């Protein structure tokens, strides 16, 4: 996204926002009060989805511009899932630009239909055998960042953004059942990675 500085040029904002007119001011005012408190949440999801700080900044900014432009379509309720859904679309456009087509996500959709009966691999042994060692924040973040995208996003939305299943379904655009099975799978994968990290330390 950094290769597209045009996205951040001021000229582009002025199309969307026509300063000086009262309805727009009210709209922007309302938007500011509702949406700005969620900037950390938007930036956090962008960091996990794009795995690059400067791309995440660009995506968060683009998200807020799009959100303000389409604020009329916001139908009330919690604004956080609505913002995160926009951010996710911005990130997917960035995937496409990076040359990684959106394919991985769609493949995963069919993949997640068949959740394995045992989510812990045989090598993992009984999950209860020993409890997980506490890792520092940086290591935990890196482990999450390594998860395949479909599982990473639901896990981040649940465990870090604290969204409900219904809200996650809204953000990702899949049924609640899919959210649930991806989350189950994601936790299993993360556990394996966590274990591997423990033995390395």
């Amino acid at each position, binding site marked *: 996204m950094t290769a597209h500085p045009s996205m951040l040029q*001021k000229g582009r*904002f002025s199309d969307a*926002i026509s*300063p*000086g007119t*009262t309805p*727009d*001011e*009210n709209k*922007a*005012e*309302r*938007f*500011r*009060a509702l949406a*700005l408190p969620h*900037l*950390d949440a*938007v*930036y*956090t999801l962008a*960091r996990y989805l794009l795995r690059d700080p400067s791309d*995440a*900044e660009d995506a*968060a*900014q683009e998200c*807020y*511009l799009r959100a*303000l432009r389409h604020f009329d379509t916001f139908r009330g309720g919690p604004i956080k899932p609505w913002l995160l859904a926009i951010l996710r679309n911005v990130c997917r456009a960035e995937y496409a630009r990076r040359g990684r087509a959106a394919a991985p996500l769609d493949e995963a959709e069919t993949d997640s239909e068949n*959740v394995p*009966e*045992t*989510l*812990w691999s045989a090598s993992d042994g*009984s*999950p*209860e055998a020993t*409890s*997980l060692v*506490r*890792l*520092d*924040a940086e290591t*935990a*973040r890196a482990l*999450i960042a390594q998860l395949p995208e479909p599982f990473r996003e639901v896990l981040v939305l*649940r*465990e*870090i953004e*604290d969204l*409900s*299943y219904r809200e996650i379904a809204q953000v990702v655009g899949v049924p609640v059942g899919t959210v*649930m*099975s991806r*989350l*189950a799978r994601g*936790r*299993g994968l993360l*556990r394996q990675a*966590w274990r591997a990290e423990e033995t390395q330390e």
Partner: protein
Amino acid sequence: MKCEDAIVLVHALADGELDAGHAREVEAHAEACTNCAEELAAAREMKNALAANDLRYAAPGSLRARIEGAMPKPQPVADRRTWLKGFALGGAVSALAASGIGFLVLHDARDDRLLGDAISAHLRSLQSEHLTDVLSSDQHTVKPWFNGRIDLAPPVPDLTAQGFTLIGGRLDFLDGQPVAALVYRRRAHVINVFVGQVLGAGSAAPQMQVVQGFNVLRWRKGGLSMIAVSDLNREELQEFETKFAAAG
């Protein structure tokens, strides 16, 4: 319940996403099925391990400034109008909340005053940056701090490994009675635990209720009454109580 359903549903159980009926069904299945019991334990453990750290990222100030700068500047007049509107709305909401409380007062005035105070104390602790008088994640610092300040010794378990971080403690008052307030954090959620000698007609078994949108869990143990207040979901607050009671 089929195992292939239950193994996914235990995650919804751990996340507090199931209604009471389904939760019981999944719990019953997990009690009888080792596989699903292990999956449930593992899911909870994973949640705790993740909740032990703040894994969010803070947006850089420069980004905030760029976004703010891209919005139309608010006019002072519009500003005040919106502020007043918000104020009026706040008044309406308070009036609504107050009428709800007034209704309950008929039931048990004493108990409601107590719970009202607990919610107020919780809110105050969040708003005023006055979360704690003694700021420490070390139980051996927090517990002795109450010596001489209050005539009871509150349990101060270290629940970091369970995903609940001790922030500290402070002295507070509920319905005119001094209480020890212990503060824990899970992700972005703050939990205030008020410990007093007799806080209402609480039973030993934990009781969950919703007061002004907050989850409130009360129980008695070791001759002390505990009231935990948080915006954390029911399942995780219940889990907190279980861990707190077991460790304390």
